[in-house]
């Protein structure tokens, strides 16, 4: 090792911070090099000065004042409620109850939402079929014979998907007569139908019937009543019908008055 390399390592050498191999090489160099030996002495003296530079002896009063200040601060902090505690204090005793209630309410709301939004037509599909008969020309005064549009029979699986229902609805205006086939005094349910099939069944076969839109509910089990108001207010045709054996054909075993 040359003097420059040794000089770099001398600060660690004097503090015994070098591994044995390097320390031995420096020792060997220092024994032969007076310049580096002088540097070692200077480092050692400076190190001794540092080690001898004892800190002042603080009085017991100084220590006691520090301790008292610390204890006073600890006591003050322990007596002062934290902001987090202040915020949580009103909820702390009832926090679990509040959380439980919130969870319960959320579950109820969720259940109600699912029940309310579920299509309820499944059980009404058989009982509440709605038939709409909407001959074209009703609104413009044409007769049924002039009507180019056949009657519309609307059933119901899902009325929300069906736009045709709305297109028929304006035909109810213009002093038209509605024909209602009701079951158990139920009101016609305009909102029910969702599927449409075009047919020319018995309403079209009624002689002298005015251009009309009629709605009716079909019961599959109880007698049905069908009223047809003609243009003459004194004439009304009323049909009573037995429940059809086949749900798709309400004309069986029916008779008119």
């Amino acid at each position, binding site marked *: 090792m040359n003097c420059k390399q040794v000089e770099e390592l001398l600060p660690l050498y004097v503090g015994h911070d070098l591994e044995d191999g390097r320390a031995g090489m420096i020792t060997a160099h220092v024994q032969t090099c007076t310049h580096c030996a002088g540097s070692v002495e200077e480092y050692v003296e*400076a190190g001794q000065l540092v*080690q001898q530079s004892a800190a002042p002896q603080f009085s017991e009063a*100084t220590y006691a*004042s520090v301790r008292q200040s610390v204890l006073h601060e600890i006591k003050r902090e322990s007596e002062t409620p934290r902001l987090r505690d202040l915020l949580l204090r009103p909820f702390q005793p009832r926090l679990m109850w509040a959380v439980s209630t919130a969870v319960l309410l959320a579950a109820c709301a969720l259940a109600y939402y699912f029940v309310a939004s579920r299509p309820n037509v499944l059980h009404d599909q058989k009982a509440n079929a709605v038939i709409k008969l909407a001959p074209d020309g009703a609104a413009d005064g044409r007769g049924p014979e002039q009507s180019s549009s056949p009657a519309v029979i609307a059933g119901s699986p899902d009325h929300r998907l069906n736009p045709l229902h709305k297109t028929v609805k304006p035909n109810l205006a213009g002093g038209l007569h509605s024909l209602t086939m009701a079951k158990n005094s139920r009101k016609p349910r305009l909102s029910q139908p969702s599927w449409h099939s075009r047919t020319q069944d018995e309403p079209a076969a009624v002689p002298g019937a005015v251009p009309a839109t009629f709605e009716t509910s079909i019961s599959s089990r109880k007698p049905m009543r069908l009223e047809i108001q003609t243009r003459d207010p004194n004439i009304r045709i009323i049909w009573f019908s037995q429940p059809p054996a086949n749900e798709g054909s309400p004309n069986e075993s029916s008779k008119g008055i």
Partner: protein
Amino acid sequence: MRSPLAWGKLNVLSEVALNRNDLPVSDLSENQTWLQLLITRAAAGDTDAFEQIMIHSQQKVMTLSWRMLGNEADARDASQEVFLRIYKYLGRFKQEQDFFAWVYQITVNVCRDFAKKRQRHTTQFPSLASMDTGRDESAFEVPADQQGADEALIAAQQRELIAGAMATLPAKERAAIVLRDIEGHTTDEVARILKSSSTTVRSQISSARRKIKLHCEQYLRRKAR
């Protein structure tokens, strides 16, 4: 629940600790058990136990603070902050850790924060001027007789020399050299305290020793003129 037996032993040991800061070295394991007991109780909020911990460690904390900051007022303020932090984070202290290494670590951090907060680029170390005006009497008490006065003067000069040299060091190098050469920790211990690597600490120590030697040479050269 505090067991009466443990409390009795604690009280006896506390009285011993009140009378002297350093416990007997011969009974090291018993001291460690005693210290662990104090730490456990202090972490649970027992301020009496924490006061015993302060008594046991106040000299180390104050001395290191003074060496890092250079004056008693700052050292006192830093020590208060150190003990408050110790109390606050005592629950995080693990029993297998070296408690005083942990205390040194907090002290070094607090002193660094102090130095940054007060925007002091050069630390104020006590000087002969402050001794003459009597501002730091606890640091330099001058004896009445002549021989004692000479010795005190030499000691004060040496202290001034080292204080000036320390003031030239960056905070990290100062912390490393204080812990290594004055407090007597090994390089690995210093690295643990400073949360650094041994290589880095060795480099910091080497640089600090070189700067101190250089400062001493310049000081002696000035005195020789």
